[in-house]
C-alpha cells in the first residue's frame, strides 16, 4: 500500500508542478490545485499508514492511527479550497482586464510605461 500511495502522491505532485509552470493562467491554477492535493495526501501519510484502525486509543491498547494528521489535512483542505476559488476568480479577472490569459500579458504595457 505504501508504494502505491507514494507513487500516487509523487505523480500528482509532478503533474501539478508541470502544469504550474505553463504559460497560461488556467493550467497554472489547475496545477496549483493538483499540487495542493498531493500535499494533502502527503500530510495525511505523515502519521503512518494504517488500515482498519480508528483514530482513538481503546482500552485494549490495540492498533490505532494518529488523529493529528487528519485534523491537519482537514484544515489544509479548507484553506486550499478557498485559495483555489480565489485564484480562479483572479484568473478570470486577469483575462477580463488584460484581454489575454497569458501570464506575461501585462509585460508589454509595462515596458512601454517605463520607457516614456
Amino acid at each position, binding site marked *: 500500500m505504501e508504494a502505491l500511495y507514494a507513487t500516487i502522491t509523487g505523480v500528482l505532485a509532478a503533474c501539478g508542478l508541470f502544469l504550474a509552470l505553463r504559460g497560461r493562467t488556467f493550467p497554472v491554477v489547475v496545477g496549483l490545485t493538483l499540487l495542493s492535493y498531493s500535499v494533502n495526501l502527503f500530510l495525511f501519510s505523515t502519521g503512518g499508514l494504517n488500515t482498519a484502525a480508528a483514530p482513538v486509543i481503546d482500552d485494549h491498547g490495540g492498533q490505532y492511527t494518529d488523529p493529528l494528521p487528519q485534523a491537519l489535512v482537514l484544515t489544509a483542505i479548507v484553506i486550499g479550497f478557498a485559495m483555489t476559488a*480565489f*485564484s480562479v476568480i483572479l484568473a478570470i479577472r*486577469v483575462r477580463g482586464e488584460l484581454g489575454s490569459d497569458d501570464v506575461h500579458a501585462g509585460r508589454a504595457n509595462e515596458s512601454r510605461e517605463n520607457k516614456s
Partner: protein
Amino acid sequence: MQHLPILPILLPLFAGLLLLLNRDGATRPRRIISLISTLLLVMVAIALVNQATDGEIRYYALGDWQPPFGIILVVDRLSAMMVLLTSVLALGSVIYACAGEDEKGTNYHGLFQLQLMGINGAFLTGDLFNLFVFFEVLLIASYALLMHGGGKTRIHASFHYVALNLANSALFLLAVGTLYGATGTLNMADMALRIGNLEPEQMELVKVGAMLLLVVFGLKAAMLPLYFWLPRAYAAAPAPVAALFAVMSKIGIYAIIRVYTLIFGDHAGPLGNLAQPWVWWLGLATLILGTVGVLAARDLRAQVAYLIILSVGTLLAGIGMNSIAAQSALLYYLPHTTLITGGLFLLVDSIAMQRGQAGSRIVRARGVKEPVPLGLFFFIGAMGIAGMPPFSGAIGKTLLLQAAIGPAQQAWLWSVLLGSGLLAIIAMSRAGSTVFWRASPRDETSVTNLGIRRGIAIGLLIGASPIMALFAGPLTAYTQATAEQLANHDAYIRTIIGPQEIGEVP
C-alpha cells in the same frame, strides 16, 4: 491581564467582522472603527512589551489545553516587540488610508484589520502548523488588499503574487508534514526538545524539512533567488497597503530567527545552526542585488521596494553571523527599516499625487506643490535608510558592523554593507534632486494637498528614525536582552513544557 496575549488577534478580528456587517455603509464610521481598533492595538502591544520586559516568557494556552498538546501563544520579548512594530506601522497606514485611499474600493478597513490579525497571530503563535494557518490568514487578506482599487498592473502583479504564494504554502505544508512525521510534534518548544535525541535515519528527514522551511521563509522574506516577485507586487500595491507590506517580509525574517534559534539552535547537535551559513551568503548576495536594484530603479515606488530587499539582505547577513551581538544589532535595525520603508511608500504616493502625469517616475517633470514638507521627509527618510548619522540607520549599521567577528566576517560584511550604503545614498540623492530640484514650474491649481492626515501618517513613520536614534540607549538595552533571551532556549523550553516532562523524554 491573563488574556492579554490573545487580544492582538481578537481585537482586529472583531473590528474586521464589525466592518464586514455593513460593507457599503458610510465611510466615516468605518474609519472611526478602524482607527479605534488600531489605536487599541497599539496600547495592547505597549502593555505586552511592558509585560515582557521583566524577561519572563509567558504563554497562553488556547482552550486551556496544555502544551505540548494544545495550541499556544507565546509572548517573549521578540514577539512582543514585533507586535508593537506591526501596530505602529498599521496606525500610520490606517491614518494615511483615511485621507481618501480607502474610498477607491470596497471594504478596505475590514480587510486591513483581518490582515493585522494574521500578522499578529504569526508573531505570537508557538505552534508550527498554527504559523501556517496565520500565514494563510494574512495572505488571503493581502491578496484582496493588493488589488484594492483595481487597474491592469495591480491585477497582473497580484496574479503572480497569488500563484507564487500558493506554491509556497504547498511547500510549507510539505515541510511541516516532514517535521511532524520525524519528530511527532508541532509545538516549537517540544520539537526543539525532541530534535536533540533523534534516530540517525530520522535526522536526514528533519534536515530536509528544515531546509524546506528555509525556502518557505526565504520566499516570504524575499531572500536572494526568491525575491523577484517583491518589487513588482509592492510597487503595484496601493500606498498604505505597501506600507503595511513592509512588515510582511519581516515576518519571514522573524520566522527564520524563531525557528533556527529555537528549534535548530546549538542544542540540536548535528542539526544545530544548519541554516546560518546559507543565510549568511544568501543575505550578502541579496544585499548586493538589492543595491543594484535601488541604483537601477526608474520609479520611486520600485526604488523603495528595492530598499526593502536591501534591508532584508542586511538582516539576513545579521542572522547568518549567529552571535548575540549580531542578533541584538539586527533587532534594532529591523524596526527602523520597517518603519522608514513604510513611511517612504506613503511619502512617494504623496509626491506622485502632486506631480500629475509624471507620477512617481524619476524624470524631470512638474514640481511638487509643497516641496518643503515633502522634501524634508524625503531627506530624513533617505538619510535614515541609507545609514547616515544622526539617524537610526547609522546606529543600526554601526552595531551590526561591530558585531562582525574575525577577518572572514569583517571583510565581507564591512565592504558589502558600507558599499551598499554609499550606493544607496547616491541613488536616493539622484532621485531626490531629480524630483525636487530639476523640476519645471509647478501648476498650483489642480493638485491634491498633503493634508493633515497624510502629514501625520508620514511624520509618524519617518519620524521614527530620529526618535529611535534619540532613544537608542534603552532600545539597544531591550534588543540586547531579547537576543540573550533568544539564545537561552532552555528557559524557553522549560517554561512551556515544564521541567518534569523534560526529564521524562528518553
